[in-house]
């Protein structure tokens, strides 16, 4: 008796031991997930965070013109800066010319003010030596009168970094005036609201087309006996698995001016001149609807599959006409599926690049096209990143709504099938 109680007192209570075992189990489970988390940090989250940082990063001018930036720190921006700033600029330009970095600052400043590249390079070319003390202001003004303008200096001060809202404002067609107030960007630079509106409009059209075309198909597949619906499902799954490039290529072959559709219509005598079916908005919407339709049909199908036919029978037995029963009983139950499918298609459509790039005209390019363009062609990485940040924000917000919706369905059993 005494020995038993003694051993019990030295042992850790069972409850705590279980807790400890559970904690070890949890740690082991976590250890299995950690490799993937780290991997994605390196290959996905890190790169995207880097891109977001580039949207606000603004250190080019600061690196090339360090003395100027330091001298402008105390400048109030109301009148022209003092002699000290001019002397600093002259020194910076001479140093930058020697190290060949002037183009870096010129490129950045030219984004903020058209023609700044010329101001800076012409000054660099014509500035023979450091001006004597007290004459820098006059000397620079003589080389390029732009140095007598206040806006030239506010542009440099705005670009003094290390972070800026310049690119993000540009992405929304906004800019700052010389006094630092946010105003509308000049019309020749204000194109991105149009591009965002176009991206939104194309995505919305494609989503609606998918819903209109996908609903009857999902209904048919959900209503037919499994044998038949499984067979017909191949018509949905085969395009789903076929390469995006193959499908886009197929539409070009079908719709081009000497393509199958135009030839067919001509042969039938319906048209004399080939119709313009591709490299325009029509082609983009048709090809994108084709690519995204399965993403609408599959969630709709699973939400419809979960609706018990007993509800419709009950409605009928209670005297509801078929249309009323459909509208009041069936349709409301498909709403989560409609929501999930539409959101999914819309989210995917927002980021589309390949299809519009291949079957769209210049006026049908979506936001992704401009992000790619500024990244690889013009190397305006700040603007590319800012546009990317806006697109990413829109995608994340919609994905959060989608997550809520799908989770809700899970609770009601909508996604069980």
């Amino acid at each position, binding site marked *: 008796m005494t020995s038993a109680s003694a051993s019990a007192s030295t042992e850790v209570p069972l409850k705590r031991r279980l807790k400890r075992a559970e904690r070890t189990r*949890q740690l082991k*489970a*976590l*250890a*299995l997930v950690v*490799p*993937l*988390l780290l*991997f*994605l940090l390196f290959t*996905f989250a890190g*790169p*995207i*965070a880097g*891109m977001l940082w580039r949207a606000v990063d603004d250190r080019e001018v600061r690196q090339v013109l360090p003395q100027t930036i330091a001298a402008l720190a105390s400048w109030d921006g109301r009148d022209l800066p003092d002699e000290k700033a001019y002397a600093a600029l002259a020194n910076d330009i001479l140093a930058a010319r020697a190290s060949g970095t002037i183009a870096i600052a010129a490129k950045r400043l030219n984004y903020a003010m058209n023609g700044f590249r010329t101001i800076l390079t012409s000054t660099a070319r014509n500035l023979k030596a450091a001006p004597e003390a007290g004459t820098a202001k006059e000397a620079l003004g003589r080389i390029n009168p732009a140095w007598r303008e206040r806006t030239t200096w506010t542009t440099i001060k705005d670009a003094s970094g290390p972070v800026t809202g310049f690119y993000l404002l540009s992405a929304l067609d906004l800019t700052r005036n010389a006094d630092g107030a946010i105003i509308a960007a000049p019309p020749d630079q204000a194109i991105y609201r149009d591009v965002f509106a176009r991206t939104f409009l194309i995505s919305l059209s494609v989503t609606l087309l998918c819903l209109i*075309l*996908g609903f009857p198909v999902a209904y*048919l597949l959900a*209503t*037919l*006996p499994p044998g038949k619906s499984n067979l*017909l499902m191949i*018509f*949905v799954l*085969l*395009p789903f*698995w*076929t*390469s*995006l*490039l*193959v499908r886009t*290529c*197929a539409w*070009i*072959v*079908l719709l*081009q001016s000497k393509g*199958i559709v135009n030839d067919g219509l001509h042969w039938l005598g319906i048209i004399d001149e080939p119709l313009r079916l591709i490299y325009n908005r029509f082609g983009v919407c048709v090809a994108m609807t*084709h690519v995204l*339709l399965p993403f609408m049909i599959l969630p709709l199908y699973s939400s419809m599959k979960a609706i018990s*036919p007993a509800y419709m029978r009950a409605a*009928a037995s209670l005297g509801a006409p*078929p*249309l009323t029963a459909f509208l009041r009983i069936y349709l409301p139950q498909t709403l989560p599926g409609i929501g999930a499918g539409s959101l999914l298609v819309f*989210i995917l459509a927002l*980021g*589309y*690049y*390949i299809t519009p790039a*291949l079957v769209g005209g210049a006026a049908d390019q979506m936001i992704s096209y401009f*992000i790619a363009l500024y*990244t*690889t062609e013009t190397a305006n*990485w700040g603007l590319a*990143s800012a546009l*990317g940040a806006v*697109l990413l924000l829109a*995608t994340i917000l919609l*994905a959060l709504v989608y997550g809520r919706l799908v989770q809700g369905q899970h609770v009601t059993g909508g996604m069980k099938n």
Partner: protein
Amino acid sequence: MSENPSLRTPSQRIAWTATIVISTLVFIFLIAPILAIMPLSFSSGSYLTYPLPGLSLRWYDDFINSPRWINSLKNSMIIGVASTLLSMVLGTLAALGLAQWKSRLKPLALAFVLSPVVVPGVITAVGLYFFFAPIGLTGSYLGLILAHTALATPFVVITVGATLQSFDTNLARAAASLGASPLQAFRRVILPLILPGLASGALFAFATSFDEVVIVLFMAGPEQRTLPREMFSGIRENISPTITAAAVVLTTVSVILLATLEGLRRRNERLKGGV
């Protein structure tokens, strides 16, 4: 029309007929473009329209004898297989961990793991382009394999996770109580049961990599161009029938993947039905 049991009134029958007619048109819309370009690849002429002047294999000959196309197919295979293997290891481990992990952070971790599917391709590509260029991973196979693995792993986590959900954890406990080490239990009990799920995950991962083009567009050097990437430039320059031959090759791979997946699903259903 006898399939639908609830057809009582004429208006219901009309609605059902309309559903069938519209669905048929949509099925044609979905399938016809893919079917329409296949015969063109066997054309003896170089115009991409019907009627075909004659049949020949000259465009396949062109495909096989062009180092550009054959290399791109080889690259697609190398990158596809390597990223599938890597994503299988990372994804299966993560799915096993997530199935046991109970934490308030779990939904967050899951959302993070699945996010590569949702984030637009261009954003991932631009981010990787900036991130990988300074460390020499652009223009390299390794960079593309890592990037494709990031995109493919979510599908492995989803498919393997779904399999684990229907997996009876008591079986693993039974194995442990009978003296199996965790590794033995995994190899002898868990693995055979989740193997179909793993296979589906691998197919999804391979298809994701095999079809991906945006990241390749940003990151691949001339040496690493994949088949979709080669098609992209081909379509941009001018659509020759060789592209339709390449399309047939790509589609054949898709059909094989889909058929294998369907076979796995049927087998799984049969097994479940058997119990």
